[in-house]
């Protein structure tokens, strides 16, 4: 039997198809219930005007009890945004993806939160410990124990 994750993801997918995505968010790829790709764009005036990013969601069978692993995709087409909470390998330091994850959130919910995180950014810069982190970072950002810098951004 499909686990709780696939049933919930099926629901989320259906919702996306029926209600559509919020502005600036697009589903790129949701062929299975293990990994989804979505594109993200900050609308209106912001530091990231005209830039399009892509997010990779990886789900465990316990989703939504366990948080999805979310990171920015880096390839020929997409780059990670330069942001104080985004490492150059695409990993994101955000409490909602770790300690403060809750099943109320959804794939779209995470996208919207990250969108507003980018939108409220005042200065484009990498996290101060970027080089050190990227050198030793695990493939899966969920394996990292982030120290959440601050909740304001």
């Amino acid at each position: 039997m499909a686990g709780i994750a696939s049933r919930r993801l099926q629901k989320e997918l259906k919702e996306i198809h029926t209600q559509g995505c919020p502005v600036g968010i697009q589903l790129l790829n949701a062929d299975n219930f293990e990994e989804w790709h979505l594109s993200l764009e900050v609308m209106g005036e912001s530091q990231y005007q005209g830039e399009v990013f892509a997010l990779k969601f990886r789900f465990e069978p316990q989703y939504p009890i366990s948080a999805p692993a979310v990171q920015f995709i880096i390839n020929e087409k997409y780059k990670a945004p330069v942001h104080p909470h985004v490492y150059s390998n695409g990993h994101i330091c955000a409490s909602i993806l770790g300690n403060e994850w809750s099943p109320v959130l959804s794939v779209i919910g995470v996208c919207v939160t990250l969108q507003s995180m980018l939108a409220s950014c005042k200065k484009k810069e990498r996290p101060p410990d970027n080089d050190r982190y990227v050198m030793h970072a695990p493939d899966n950002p969920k394996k990292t124990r982030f120290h959440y810098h601050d909740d304001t951004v």
Partner: protein
Amino acid sequence: MAEAARVPGVDDLRVKLCYICREEEQYDQPESQQNKSVWVHPCNCTLVAHESCLLEWIKTAQQNPARAENALKCPQCGAEYELESNNPPLLRLMEAVNKLLTMGGRIVMAVNLSTVLVAFGSGLYVVSTAYGLHAMQEFLGKEMFDHLITDDPGKWPLHAWFNLPMIPLTLILSRTSLTETTLTATIPLFITWAITKPVQTDGAPLFRPAPDTDYFPLAPNQEGFLSWPPGPVLSIFLWLGVKSLYRRCWNRFCHYVLDTQPARAPDGRRMRRFLWDFDEGGAGPLRLRIAANVLGERRREGQVQAGQQHADAQQRDGGNEDGDAEENDNQPTARYTSSSIGRLIGGALMIPTISNRMGTLLYRLSQHSSLLRKFLGVKPPMSVGLRITSAISPAFYKLTPAQQVTTFSWAVLRVIMHGTRSWNEMDPVWFRNTIGLGLFVVAKDCAELFYAWLSKRELESRHVKTRPFRGIDARELDLIRPQRITT
């Protein structure tokens, strides 16, 4: 009307949507999706959930220490969930016991750990103190040792408990590159002993009466500024001065002996590097590298307890190194191998014994030379006990304040120059031991220099022996004058 006043509950909803699994349930189609659980509305907002989903979420969150705090809170409105469970007193009791045991386990662990640490530390302390006592006895000589310290810990002055265990540490450190700091650490150590009140030995019935003018019994009864041998405090500064002067001259002498051809004398270069190391070593970090003995490495030990560091500078052999290589090579490498550490510690701990043996040797020699006897200040063992009272003589209080200040500072000056009475009037074993130690250092330096010089000569005189082409057919060789083939 009664219906309207009733506050609606979760079962009054037309559509129930579980915020965790996102399953929906229409009020008119219950169990439509073979559902498993009752519905709950646990908080103050509109979220509802399957009880089973919610319990699963709470359980998972509670298992994660970082999330446990918020496990029972609604993620949306923050209201606290109320859990009801079959929680009989027995379970609660057992939980409390478990908690207590966990805490107890932690305490036991901490106690164990600290016991081990304390045991190790106190063992080290006892051994160090015993060694310090031995060192003092070797260095001071029996008579002064019995007068100042004695074997009985009950009589020790307070600072002995700190100074005695410091002795082995100081000796070892004095041979590392931390020389400068140890010197400053040693000075208070010796000064406290030089001016400390001696231990009163029990049942010493023979006292020498103190003269009336002797207001301070501790101060030596000595006229003039200088006495020979100098008092212990003065001796420390003399020792330091003589030491640095000797070091400077000795290094120059080493260069003179070894450095006749600077580019080709590895030993000379090593000296320089050694010197550089010495200059920097005090402030710089101690580069400690445990390495197996490197083939071809010749070690040169730092001079013994003159307080020099012990550096095994890595020798890079090769007769044809030029000045450039030397420039590139000026990174000092203090190399400590396991055997060199053993030599360092062993050598350091031998210092008191060596100095005692050398002092005894000097004493023997002084039996045949009155000049040496005078130089060493040899005195016969005291036939009468030295009476030292701790009280200031009452006559002192009869003086005017100005006189008090003068006599007091005069007494302090005398203690600094001559040492306390015990140091001044007893046979100065410590002085001949110090001189002996100095002589030993010089002898050892000479031996090392000689060793380095011989090594260098060996290196310079090397050449490879050449042999004739015996056993090879001469026709295979391309000779200037081919040999005629004789048939």
